[in-house]
């Protein structure tokens, strides 16, 4: 399956990119995160305990299931308002 991953704010800066297309068998967002963490180095920022995530532009938890074509987002706690 292919999915699109996007990063924001401090994560976007740490990773040096605002997103990427990923190919693989990802049952959940957590599996996407683990695949990214396995790259090591700067991707370890995604191990932060307070990481937030979204699937198709709705906030969700890491155990959220994924399907082909989903948009997944990882970002630090939001600070608007």
């Amino acid at each position, binding site marked *: 399956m292919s999915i699109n991953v*996007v990063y*924001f*704010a*401090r994560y976007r800066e740490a990773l040096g990119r605002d997103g990427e297309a990923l190919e693989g068998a990802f049952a959940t967002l957590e599996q996407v995160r683990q695949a990214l963490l396995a790259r090591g180095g700067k991707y370890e920022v995604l191990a932060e305990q*307070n990481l937030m995530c*979204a699937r198709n*532009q*709705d*906030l969700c938890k890491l155990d959220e299931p994924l399907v082909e074509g989903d948009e997944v*987002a990882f*970002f*630090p*706690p*939001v*600070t*608007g*308002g």
Partner: protein
Amino acid sequence: MSIRVQAEVFDPGAETNAMHAANVGVGAVVAFVGYVRDFNDGQEVAGMFLEHYPGMTEKALAKIVVEAQQRWPLLKVEVLHRIGALDPGEPIVFVGVASAHRQAAFDACNFIMDYLKTRAPFWKKEQTGNGPRWVEGKQSDEDAAGRW
């Protein structure tokens, strides 16, 4: 419901007046305006940049407003949030709520701000004397949202 995400500065007074806009069923308008301060966390702040997640931002704000409308009898709700470069003293956010009576308007405005702070995808980056820094999420904001 009106949701606006914009770079342009706005006039909080005009926005507040528009909440009534000749609707004589409105007995109460509560408006919250958030501003950029020139000092935060022990450092002077010369300016700020607000990043957001285009698409999700509008969707997240609309969900919050729908939830407020389900909890309280509201006649009008407006959420306006700035993005991009902001200077100290400028307004960042406006939340206006109109209702027949004050308690629903007070509570709904408070609720919308608490949820916006913890669920809407905005991130503040401050310009300080020591360079730029990302504002970190606060536990107190999580606690405030948790009381609803």
